[in-house]
């Protein structure tokens, strides 16, 4: 791992001296997926030091939440991980519901699961597309967006928005889905299944793609756990940790699905975990559609201005990027006393400073892309 870090010492012994070069990767760079800056010290094409610099998108949602009611905070959560906003809504609602002692009706829970899984597919599709671009294949990106667009249509049908849904509310969900929506959703799933096989043909098992990603950016399991990674980044290293199984919420224990695990923790393993998760999400979506029994979607008696008892609650969900947690403190007032977001992207990005060293400039992009960060969530 630290092969590159030793390079400067070796240089001093050789008569041929070479200077290292400092490169700013970002904040304006096509592959940093937002406003991330990585200061790279390179020797030829070899990275000797990497310093990720974040904070360009910091909007202070934790502070904003302290002067907003609980219903309003759900709107704020949409803006963290804007690629998959449903789990963000969900995690805040779970934490607030724990504080208030609300119980969500079963149909509401099923809808939450349904939306989160659809959003996971949408998010992983975006990853699939942009990772293809990072590696140099442009076409998978548009194929992925073609499919993602359909999911966004589904979200638009049900919640009215395509990116910032504000759909999952305290005590349930905003509105019920219609039969037409369920039919459309099934239509999409039927359409989407064969597309996944095509993605495998096009990118996953492409020899060039495999060569670029297979032995690059290896994260051993102990390192991954020590760095606090989560989501597909952790599971790519073979650590079986998924909040949906480890700490089930919304009745995930009733669904039959598997946790795809990687073997070596390479970029390809992380990528493949996500592609496999899409298949698992398809399974969950189909089960959730079958589970949809008529009933209310919103718990009765959700106050317009909720004032929970003083207390502390922690809730976490398996978002598209990993273990998304919220630590919520109430002092009995109408707004949270303290809201702390444990953002998976923030943790997944931190490992870059160790992971990038010793790799080539091309691999920086491959590794950065494979961690699948969203800067909105990193900076909050």
């Amino acid at each position, binding site marked *: 791992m630290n092969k590159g870090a030793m390079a400067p010492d070796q240089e001093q012994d050789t008569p041929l001296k070479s200077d290292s070069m400092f490169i700013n990767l970002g904040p304006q760079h096509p592959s940093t997926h937002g406003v991330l800056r990585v200061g790279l010290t390179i020797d030829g094409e070899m990275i000797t030091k990497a310093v990720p610099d*974040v*904070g360009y998108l*910091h909007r*202070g949602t*934790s*502070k904003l939440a*302290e*002067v*907003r*009611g609980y219903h*309003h905070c759900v709107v704020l959560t949409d803006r963290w991980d804007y690629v998959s906003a449903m789990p963000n809504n969900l995690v805040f609602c779970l934490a607030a519901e*724990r*504080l208030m002692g609300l119980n969500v009706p079963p149909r509401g829970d099923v809808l939450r699961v349904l939306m989160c899984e659809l959003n996971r597919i949408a998010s992983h599709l975006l990853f699939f597309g942009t990772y293809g671009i990072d590696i140099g294949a442009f076409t998978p990106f548009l194929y992925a967006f073609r499919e993602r667009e359909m999911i966004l249509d589904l979200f638009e049908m049900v919640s009215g928005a395509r990116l910032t849904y504000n759909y999952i509310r305290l005590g349930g969900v905003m509105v019920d889905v219609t039969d037409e929506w369920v039919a459309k959703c099934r239509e999409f799933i039927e359409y989407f299944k064969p597309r996944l096989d095509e993605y495998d043909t096009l990118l996953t098992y492409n020899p060039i793609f495999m060569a670029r990603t297979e032995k690059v950016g290896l994260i051993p399991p102990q*390192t991954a*756990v*020590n*760095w*606090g990674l989560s989501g597909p980044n952790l599971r790519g290293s073979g*650590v*079986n*940790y998924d909040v949906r199984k*480890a*700490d089930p919420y919304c009745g995930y224990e009733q669904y039959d699905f598997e946790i795809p695990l990687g073997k070596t923790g390479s970029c390809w393993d992380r990528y493949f975990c996500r592609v496999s998760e899409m298949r698992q999400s398809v399974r969950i979506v189909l089960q959730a559609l079958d589970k949809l029994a008529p009933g209310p979607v919103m718990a009765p008696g959700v106050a317009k*201005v909720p004032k929970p008892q*003083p*207390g*502390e*609650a*922690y809730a*976490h969900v398996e978002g598209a990027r990993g*273990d998304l*947690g919220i*630590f919520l*403190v109430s*002092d*009995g*007032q*109408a*707004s949270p*006393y*303290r809201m*702390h977001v*444990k953002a998976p992207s*923030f*943790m997944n*990005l*931190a*490992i870059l400073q*160790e992971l990038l060293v010793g790799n080539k400039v091309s691999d920086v992009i491959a590794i950065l892309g494979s961690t699948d960060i969203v800067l909105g969530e990193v*900076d*909050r």
Partner: protein
Amino acid sequence: MTQDELYSKLAAELPHLEKAQTQVKDYLTMRLPSADRLLETVRALKERLGFDYLEMVSATDWLGPVKPEGYIRNPNPIVFMAEGATPQSIPTATPNFPYRPMIELVWMLANIPEKIRLVLKLEVPREDAAVPSLCGLFKAADWQEREIYDLMGVAFTGHPNLTKILTPEFLQGHPLRKDYVHVKDRFDE
């Protein structure tokens, strides 16, 4: 492992941990009496009890509700709005709530194979708040501690690179402290 089993185990192995008054809902919450034994405790938890996954580092400032003065940076330039739009709801102090000039640090540790989590709490005074860094034990603490330092102003002694991470260089103060007042900077005009 259930929470009760974990509690009895903790009582046997680390007797100086006490059950916290405010439990984080659904998770076992233990309180450390002082910062001195933090490293020792966490090392024991990591090595002997298998809590090798640091899930969250957080902190709460218990000074009291936010002061709205200085909360909004700019007066609203829009003609129809009241000058300097107010926050959505101005929090007031809850009567009989134990507000105190302390910062409470919260660590959440997880044992992945056992599927159990443990919350550690530690109170430090607001002035010159400092606790030992967990960076030596968990790399995951690196950025999370920087975040807490940046936003809450808790110095983590022994951290290799304790610098601001989220807020810009010129921003003065620690925004998540309840008495934070914005100081005008070059972007305010």
